[in-house]
């Protein structure tokens, strides 16, 4: 059956053509640096609550959505399996790809904005820090009402850490290893917080936002606080965005859009939605 060539149909065709033409003229320069036209492919870590979880989403997933929205692009999430170091993740997801043949992304979130570190991975540009993160201690306040130093963990309290993480290295090396019998290792911070809730440990050390987000809205009886620390590991850092270094237009567009998300308060709202206080990035960056 042949459809009659109706007037509305003709009109629609003309309109569509006009729109395409307009889109072409309006195409911002960064669009040409995208892997696929109209699509922003953003890598976020898999299994990383409260930032990015395949089922429950998270802070980074919401930021990816907001960023794609600001740039007028469709979001395509790449779920990244963490390798040993961030250098590996940047290679696997931003500038080269893994030899198993995955599709790389236009950018990756939660990458440390640190010029010293960036020198080691010149293939990418680290930019637009969107919050400040530091190591803190989440504790059961019934067991440890006040926490001024690490003394409780020399005697009768156990503290949980993520195996191989910064707090692990920090605590294991402290005072020639005198705390080692009170350090309990977990595969993830989520498991460590679960142990805290079950009373298996009195406290957990880890990045503040992770501790708060994992404790969630029902935080009665728990506190997250800082303690004085000096040691071999950075205790303060600023996550941001990694883009392949040879995409200047995309870098500029992302920088602008992310700054707007921070300035408008949208960024803080995303953190608060996931039960974490928002700690804005410091202009002076990470001190070394």
């Amino acid at each position, binding site marked *: 059956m042949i459809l009659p060539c109706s007037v509305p149909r003709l009109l629609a065709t003309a309109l569509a053509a006009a729109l395409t033409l307009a889109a072409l003229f309006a195409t911002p320069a960064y669009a040409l640096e995208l892997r696929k036209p109209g699509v922003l492919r953003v890598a976020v*870590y*898999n299994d*990383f609550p409260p*930032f990015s979880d395949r089922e429950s989403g998270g802070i980074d997933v919401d930021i990816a959505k907001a960023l794609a929205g600001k740039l007028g692009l469709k979001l395509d999430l790449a*779920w990244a*399996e*963490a*390798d*040993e*170091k*961030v250098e590996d*993740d940047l290679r*696997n997801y931003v500038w080269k790809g*893994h*030899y*198993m043949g*995955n599709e790389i992304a236009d950018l990756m979130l*939660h990458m*440390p904005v*640190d010029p*010293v*570190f960036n020198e080691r991975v010149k293939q990418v540009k680290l930019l637009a820090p969107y919050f400040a*993160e530091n*190591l803190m201690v989440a504790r059961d306040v019934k067991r440890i009402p006040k926490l001024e130093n690490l003394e409780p963990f020399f005697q009768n309290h156990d503290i949980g850490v*993520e*195996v*191989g*993480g*910064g707090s*692990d*290295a*920090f605590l*294991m*090396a*402290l005072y*020639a*290893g005198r705390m*080692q*019998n*009170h*350090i*309990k*290792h977990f*595969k993830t911070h989520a498991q460590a917080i679960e142990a805290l809730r079950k009373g298996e440990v009195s406290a957990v050390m*880890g*990045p503040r936002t*992770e501790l708060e987000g994992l404790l969630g809205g029902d935080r009665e009886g728990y506190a997250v606080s800082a303690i004085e620390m000096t*040691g*071999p*590991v*950075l*205790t303060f*850092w600023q*996550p941001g965005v990694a883009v392949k270094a040879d995409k200047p237009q995309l870098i500029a567009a992302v920088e602008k859009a992310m700054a707007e998300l921070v300035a408008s308060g949208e960024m803080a709202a995303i953190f608060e939605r996931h039960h974490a206080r928002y700690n804005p990035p410091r202009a002076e960056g990470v001190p*070394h």
Partner: protein
Amino acid sequence: MQRKTLSMLVAAAFAGASLTAVAGPVTDDMILNDAKSTGDVLSFGMGTQGQRYSTLSKINTGNVSKLVPAWAFQFGGEKQRGQESQPVIHDGKIFVTASYSRMYAVDAKTGRELWQYDHRLPEGIMPCCDVVNRGAALYDNLVIFGTLDAQLVALDQNTGKVVWKEKLDEFSAGYSYTAAPLVVKGLVITGVSGGEFGIVGRLDARDAKTGKIVWTRPVVEGHMGYLNGKENGITGETNASWPGDTWKTGGSSTWLGATYDAKTNLVYVGTGNPAPWNSHTRPGDNLYSCSTVAINPDTGKIVWHYQNTPNDGWDYDGVNEFVTFDMKGADGKAVRAGGKADRNGFFYVNDAETGKLLNAFPFVDKVTWASKIDLASGRPVYNDDNRPGNPGADKQGKTVFSAPSFLGGKNQQQIAYSPDTGLFYVPANEWGMDIWNEPISYKKGAAFLGAGFNIKPLNEDYIGALRAFDPKSGKKVWEVKNNAPLWGGAMTTKGGLVFYGTPEGHLKALDAKSGKELWAFQTGSGVVAPPVTWEQDGEQYIAVVSGWGGAVPLWGGDVAKRVNFLNQGGALWVFKLAK
């Protein structure tokens, strides 16, 4: 009784001078006689002891120069990278695994493909250390191999169809599998590979016909072993050599597989480095990391262990193969001993029954971490200056130059032993590394204490060296240098020859007594796999897989310059004497 007579008859047949292929199902007796039977290659190591020695002498020092290709078989596909596989051969068929968890059955006479199995790998899988596979095991009508997503797959030898498939562990937790399984007494024995953090090394034994688990034995103290679903005793003594709960995530991955000696009835497995990498946070020996562990296959229990690098701080995996042989003692009596060329640069000779250290000597020119291994105590004499600094005491942590590098005086490339010459043939590498603490390091979500490495060659003209050692005296009898690091295993024969491959693409034959090169053939890509030999229709054949890759191109540091021009590939080459 009848059974005994039959096995005696079989044994008598194996003792015969020239035995061609035995058809039919592969039995335990056939596997135990693999080193003597010339018509097949039924196990990794050309015999479960791993000597990689053949009694064939039709190809010998006098005629090896006439060795020519019989045929070549291309793996094809878009996938190449490292090909570290040793073929196994039975009943006129060659079974060879390839990168990305593939397997091929090829007609041994013609090189014609009989079937191909492509294991379907899940999305998002990220194995750490290339996509290699080191080979398959044969049992009954099955050919069994492990995959990058940590599955053990048993295929029908005739059809390539899956008979059973078992999960070794969770690939999503970083587990993988790359070694060739070992079959002993109807059990298929495997270790684990992959996943630096949070894993614990172990050996598993399954019924080879069904894949059902029989026993599992962790190789880190404190962990429970199991036999037939029941608790079978804790490994070692909890917290004897690990502080706090660090034993729970103690590493010690068993990624290179195991050997077996019927005379001692022991399975020998090498264990990897302990975790975390900073040795100052885990004072103690950290048993049984960086060790040889001997396990009774009937009980699943550890009989002895010998630790090569106590409290490792250099990433000196102790996974290398323990190859048993008869060594004559001072009284002229032969002792069953085992030789192991460790990542840490020392060659160890232990009593295979008891683990007692009989000899230890460096097989590389430069070893910085220890001045020697004390034979009386069996322990290394450390150079304390050469342990990477304690970052707790000193924020930056000093940079130390250590040799060998963490890729080892020897890595996955297998040694060979000839009972004729009494020599071990060791594909060694001379390289060191700068190693330092990296306080400005990041991993998923956080800053952490990383380590920086840079691997450096020690000599201008070579990194690799195939070396012949007398295990009793520790004397280096000869060596042949190679520009690129050696990454393929060695094989030796009654024909007085040593065969080995190079990253530059050559398969070479040397005089086993002198090291003189007698033959070489360019295979078109780097050889990082061990050769094998067998006999069919009265002719002796040599086979080797060619295909450059593995850990060197991934980790190379300054070494990359010597290898980055090499092309990838994937082929099985077969040679025989020209008529």
